[in-house]
């Protein structure tokens, strides 16, 4: 569930719009991620409890691009969660390790479900105002014709997520990840950072 507020700061509940968002996991329910440092992909098990921390950094980016809105995951507290890349050990906030496809999907979703309808409403009000103010005076008469396209783009689709990569059970913290087939040089657990070896 995503909550959109009209402007920053404390907002009352009636000022916000809520909508659900779904995104694709692979057949084993893993979420694909991309390391922002080396650009390689890996996957982590999708835990609904981690959703806020997954979405929040992506929301911040959308807020910066679109402006005038504030996005937040409505369920649960946002807690800082970090991941290490299983290939290069780069450490970053969990939500900064999302694929560009995932980020595009989120952006399209917010545009389609919130931003464009709002813009359409704004133009609609503006157009109605102009139409009602068609006027004349003793010197000149003019009419304003207001027309705009209010067709919304198609809703974006998430997935399908390929069933690729190899599962690795992290015996340190009990979590599961997926990494490229044939990659055995895992040095640290991406989740708890314990030094490990694949044996």
């Amino acid at each position, binding site marked *: 569930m995503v909550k959109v507020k009209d402007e920053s700061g404390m907002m009352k509940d009636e000022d916000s719009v809520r909508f659900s968002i779904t995104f694709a996991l692979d057949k084993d329910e893993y979420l694909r991620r991309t390391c922002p440092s080396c650009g390689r992909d890996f996957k982590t098990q999708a835990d609904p409890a981690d959703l806020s921390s997954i979405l929040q950094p992506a929301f911040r980016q959308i807020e910066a691009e679109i402006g005038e809105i504030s996005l937040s995951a409505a369920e649960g507290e946002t807690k800082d969660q970090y991941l290490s890349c299983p290939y290069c050990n780069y450490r970053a906030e969990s939500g900064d390790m999302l694929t560009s496809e995932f980020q595009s999907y989120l952006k399209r979703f917010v545009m389609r479900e919130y931003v464009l309808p709002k813009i359409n409403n704004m133009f609609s009000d503006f157009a109605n105002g102009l139409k009602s103010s068609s006027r004349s005076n003793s010197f000149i008469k003019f009419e304003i014709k207001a027309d705009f396209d209010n*067709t919304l783009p*198609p809703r974006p*689709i998430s997935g399908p997520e*390929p069933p690729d990569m190899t599962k690795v*059970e992290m015996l340190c913290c009990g979590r599961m990840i997926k990494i490229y087939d044939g990659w055995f040089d*895992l040095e640290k657990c991406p989740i708890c950072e314990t030094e490990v070896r*694949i044996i």
Partner: protein
Amino acid sequence: MNKDTVTESLRRFVERRDDLLHEDEDGFNLHLSRFVELCERDDLIQSVLSPILKKCSPDVDAWWKQLSNNEIDFPSDPDEEFALRYSILQSVNQEPDKVYSFVFAFGKRKRDEGIELFRSTVLRPLVTELTNRVSKAANIVTPEERALQAVPLSRIPTATETRIFLSHKSIDKPIVMRYYNALKALGFEPWLDEPDMPAGTNLERGIFDGFEKSCAAVFFITENFKDEKYLASEVDYAIMQKRNKGKKFAIITFRYPNALPVPGLLTPYIFKDVENDLDGFYQLVRALPIELGQTRWKKEVVD
């Protein structure tokens, strides 16, 4: 189809589908032809499309005629609907000007508006359904695989500390050999005097070395086991190892029926009365400080 082929198919599918759905109207014809081309030659997508297109024969001309009368209708049967939508897509690919039918039908004026309407009314439901079906097909052709294990470094022993020292009186060798063979078959590395001490080895040093390399010492107390000579040394060495290695060394004592008393020095450690070898072996594996790894196929089975 292997996992790599399926992954590549899905990657291309998502890329071309999203281009078709979301990119600018100016490039619509190009994105449409690239999408249809992928659908026609990709094995995974064809595995979804072919059976449906063979089964259903939608009347796409009738549908266009209906649209010119401002009517949009689709069959109630999901496969029929799917086949019809795909056929409409193909027909727009062959005759791009058909999108103007949407412009006229919905009272719009621009080609771009016609494309948006085509996307919303025909394309989006089609690719949503195709996405679901392709996703299912991909999951079917990629079988479940076992996971690897990443073990914390602190849990990985060196090669020279995982032997299991089997302490016994020579006369009890037949019992001990059964444990030795069973441990070996499972993948453990038991230490036994005969195979591990070549002729000429100093006995006391050889035994001491065996303890140094071990993570457990197992004492088989029978009516023959007496706490004297080499057996007494082994008890002393075991206690020394326990002091040095702590939890990473186990002293395990099995008392067989009619056994002599357990040597006093061993009593603070694990000792069990065992009825038979199977019971003893179970207790032994449970008490060891090491465990074996993942299940795997034997080499000769897969070669």
